């Protein structure tokens, strides 16, 4: 009888148990392990890609002549400054106008609004998106209206020629010309001057370095001869004191 029982056990039950264990191993052990391996593989691959990107960036950084690039940046800062330096802009425009024989009758600056009219209408996502875009566009330029006067109609042409070659970039959007009975011309110009702050977002360490191409060098060479009309320094007044003039 005992012999029959152990025989049944060995013949049927043990193999069945083995098969059962193998079948259970697949979903509870094997598949999770495969998933873990897949995830780890992806992690290793993306890590390797990031490492390769950082290493190639290191190579390029090693080849950069920091002094040369800094001096180029200083020059470009005069054309497209990082901040809205209104004082030097005002002085520069006035001196340009005077050089062309024009007198400045008025100058109205709009450096950039803090809260646009669109920002007040926050009832919809579209209005919010518009307000954000408008605020961003305002922060990238200074807009001003310049009213000039002269007796000679050709004086404006001199001014327009000079404005195309100023170190500090200016662009004319519109010009309105009017002649009065005395033959004096009034010119109202809407002018924009670009501004560019350095913006960074995302993975700055691993993000690839922008290439300095021949095209960039050509632009740099083109603007190198531009004339600087806004290189005026202003002594800043002391703040937080009773008398800032002392």
């Amino acid at each position, binding site marked *: 009888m005992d012999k029959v029982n152990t025989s049944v056990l060995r013949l049927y039950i043990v193999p069945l148990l083995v098969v059962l*264990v193998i079948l259970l191993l697949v979903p509870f052990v094997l598949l999770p392990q495969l998933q873990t391996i897949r995830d780890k593989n992806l992690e290793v691959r993306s890590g390797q890609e990031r490492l390769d990107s950082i290493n190639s960036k290191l190579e390029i950084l090693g080849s950069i002549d920091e002094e040369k690039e800094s001096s180029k940046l200083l020059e470009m800062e005069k054309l497209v400054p990082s901040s809205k330096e209104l004082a030097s802009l005002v002085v520069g425009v006035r001196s340009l106008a005077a050089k062309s024989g024009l007198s400045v009758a008025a100058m109205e600056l709009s450096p950039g609004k803090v809260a646009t009219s669109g920002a007040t209408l926050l009832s919809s996502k579209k209005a919010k998106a518009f307000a954000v875009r408008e605020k961003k566009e305002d922060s990238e330029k200074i807009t001003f209206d310049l009213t000039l006067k002269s007796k000679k109609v050709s004086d404006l042409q001199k001014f327009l020629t000079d404005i195309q070659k100023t170190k500090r970039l200016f662009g004319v959007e519109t010009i309105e010309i009017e002649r009065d009975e005395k033959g004096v011309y009034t010119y109202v110009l809407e002018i924009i001057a670009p501004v560019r702050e350095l913006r960074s977002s995302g993975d700055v360490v691993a993000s690839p370095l922008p290439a300095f*191409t021949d095209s960039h060098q050509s632009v740099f060479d083109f603007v190198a001869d531009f004339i600087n009309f806004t290189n005026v320094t202003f002594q800043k007044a002391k703040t937080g004191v009773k008398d800032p003039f002392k």
Partner: protein
Amino acid sequence: MAKDIDLMPREAAKKERTRGSVNKTVNITAVVSLLVVAAVLAALFGYQLFLASSAQRIDSQTKDSQEQVIAQSAKDITRRALVEKLDDTKEFLNSRLLFAGSYKIVLDILNKSGATLTEGKLKNDGIFTISADAKTTKILNKVVNALNDEKLKEDLKNIKLITLTKIPNEPYKFTVEYKALKRGLLEKASEGEGEK
């Protein structure tokens, strides 16, 4: 002697032998299956260990490389700022209408014809609207002919006479609209994209 005598009937003995053989096969199969599964699991664990050590090595190398990049962050910032400003400059200069040249064309036409500019509106989209006085029809004709000169084909287009009035004892007053074409202060800078 009694021990060597096989007292089991032949069929029963045969059955017993068969059962024993099947039993052996089943056991061997079970053990082999377990060994195979164990081998697969061991291989998977081994691969996981390899991946873990690779990840650790990559992390360590990345950390070192990151530190080196951060140490040269000044160069990074300078390069980014420089390229951004150059791109902005190029875009800005290319978008500008050549106001000076376009305005000069109008002035030259009016001066040579003898007309006098009284009003004007010039926009960066190229649309110019000019109002002037002409004392005689001869002057007016000169202005019209000059605007339609073939030599100005590349500078102006869509020339339209908007208004023309004549009040007795006053000069002819006319308004002309046209589109100035010359754009882009940057002429050759966009050529060539070679890496420096």
